[in-house]
């Protein structure tokens, strides 16, 4: 799985442009595409309709009268309790959680991966194996001990605590990612640097880091989407004032005041999904590499 780079299709080539196989092929693909695109379409059109129009009926119909009101409301007016500042608060919370978490987790994991591939020491492989197996342990078995640990170091409910939790749980996959990358770097390069008198950090910063930029981009994509989309840790290790956007979204959608405002809900949902979607559409193949990194084997 090392490289998911698309080297060109391999299957047999269909013969004619309008052959029966071709029509079947594209027909199937288009049908399936509709299943994948449907929710996005429905969310967008719903978020642009007014409530009366929604009540009239068809979720799939395009809006007769486009209104941006739901978006405004979702962003800055929707209420949870007496706080009626919409998702904007959650957005900024997410940003505040995201940036340090991404930086910290990648910093730790890249050094780990570098140490594991070039500076093996007795037991390092054991720790690494435990770390990787840890990625498969259900979070539920660790949630409560972490509450206690965070309490002991005084970070419970604090943004710092959540940053730490994200760094801890991001470590297995990221370490694996970086270890595999650094292992693929010719060992002789590392040896040459040692002969040149460079130590642990100098080799890391001057030799390895500049070479690993693509993998850093992959790691950033992986972490940004992962942390942005997190719900479980956000709901357990933060307080309402610092809720990330996903948790706030769930709150807004599930704290109904009178009538469910589906258009506002959909606008809020889209707003929450916007950041990872934008990253997805901008990063293209790197995103694929990023998520496939989770599947990368040793």
């Amino acid at each position, binding site marked *: 799985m090392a490289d998911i780079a698309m080297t060109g299709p391999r299957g047999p080539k269909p013969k004619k442009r309008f052959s029966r196989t071709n029509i079947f092929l594209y027909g199937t693909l288009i049908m399936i595409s509709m299943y994948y695109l449907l929710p996005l379409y429905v969310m967008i059109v719903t978020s642009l309709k007014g409530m009366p129009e929604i009540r009239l009926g068809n979720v799939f119909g395009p809006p007769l009268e486009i209104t941006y009101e739901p978006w405004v409301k979702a962003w800055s007016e929707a209420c949870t309790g007496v706080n009626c500042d919409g998702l904007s608060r959650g957005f900024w919370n997410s940003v505040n959680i995201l940036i340090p978490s991404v930086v910290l987790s990648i910093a730790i994991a890249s050094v780990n991966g570098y140490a594991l591939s070039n500076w093996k020491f007795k037991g390092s492989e054991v720790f690494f194996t435990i770390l990787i197996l840890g990625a498969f342990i259900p979070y539920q078995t660790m949630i409560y001990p972490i509450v206690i640990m965070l309490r002991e170091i005084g970070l419970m409910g604090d943004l710092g605590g959540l940053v730490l939790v994200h760094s801890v749980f991001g470590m297995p996959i990221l370490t694996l990612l970086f270890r595999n990358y650094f292992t693929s770097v010719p060992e002789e*390069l590392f040896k040459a640097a*040692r*002969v*040149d008198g460079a130590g642990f950090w100098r080799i890391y910063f*001057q030799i390895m880091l500049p070479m690993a930029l693509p993998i850093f981009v992959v790691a950033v994509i992986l972490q940004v989407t992962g942390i942005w989309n997190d719900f479980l840790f956000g709901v357990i290790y933060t307080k309402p004032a610092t809720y990330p956007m996903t948790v706030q979204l769930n709150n807004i959608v599930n704290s109904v005041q009178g009538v469910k405002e589906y258009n506002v809900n959909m606008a809020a949902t889209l707003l929450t999904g916007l950041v990872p979607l934008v990253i997805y559409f901008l990063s293209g193949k790197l995103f694929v590499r990023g998520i496939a990194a989770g599947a990368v084997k040793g």
Partner: protein
Amino acid sequence: MSLELGKSAYSVEIKQLDLAFGAVKVLQGLDLNINEGEFLVLLGSSGCGKSTLLNCIAGLLEITDGQIWIKGQNVTWAEPSERGIGMVFQSYALYPQMTVKGNLSFGLKNAKLPKDEIEKRVARAAEILQIEPLLNRKPGALSGGQRQRVAIGRALVRDVDVFLFDEPLSNLDAKLRVDLRVELKRLHNQLQNTMIYVTHDQVEAMTLADRIAVMKGGAIMQLGTPDEIYNKPRNLYVADFIGSPSMNFLEGHFEDGRFTVDDMVMPMTGYDFAAPQTANRPAVIGIRPEHVVTGELVRNTPLRYKVDVDLVEPMGSDTLVYAKLGRHIFRIRMDGQAVVQAGETIEIGVDPSRASLFDKATEDRL
């Protein structure tokens, strides 16, 4: 000062070196002394421990037991950069993100040398290796030969006494390899540094080395000049390993100064025995294909045989003939002009003084 340090006659000394990865012993009780200014080649097939030994000398592998001395200093546990060595790798190992100049000066910067000193040394190395026009390029923009020159330059700027080469020419194509080999030899003549050179290519070994250490299974099989290695291999392994096409071996018996194989008897007149031989024993005789005489010259050889030509491989400069000698196939190197055809019977001559005789049981040279 040098007296205090107990200056040794050797540039590099390896004493009772042991290296094991877990239960696997890679090097065992290895001793090797390398003279000042010597070009020593570690030769062997892959997995024989030659690169491992080089990495131990460089300090890139932690040894299990023993000592390594460089320039009269015990450096067994010193950092690679503190050993006074420079190293050149097979894959060049140039830092891809730095320019040639950056590559050359990286080690000097780490050693915190003054800037003008760095400039001076880089300029000198670039001049010696004729890479001045490349200084501001990145390795990606260089050809293989240029890259290896830069890699050598990186060792050169360090101004060290011992150069370590780990198969530096293996990644180059055949023609470049020859060119660079010549240059390396010239460089050694010019600098007169100690050089330890790892290769699996016997031509490189023969052409470059002052002495060659042939290695097998983590031990040195023979340490000697190229001439010794070639003409007087100390055991069957070395005899077989060195030379292409390889030596012809005939298994037989050694009795009263004569070697008998089947119904042929070869008196070993003129053979330079390693020790006076009295005991009779099973033995193996080795004759290099190029030492088999054909044509007119056969008359001058003490031993002559008639053989049937089985197969002929013309190679341009010379011709390799496979001939049947009794029940053995014998390889004979003939002149490129020689006209031989399969099915012919030809006469060959052998000079026992140029052959090698081995004890069959111990495989050591007699």
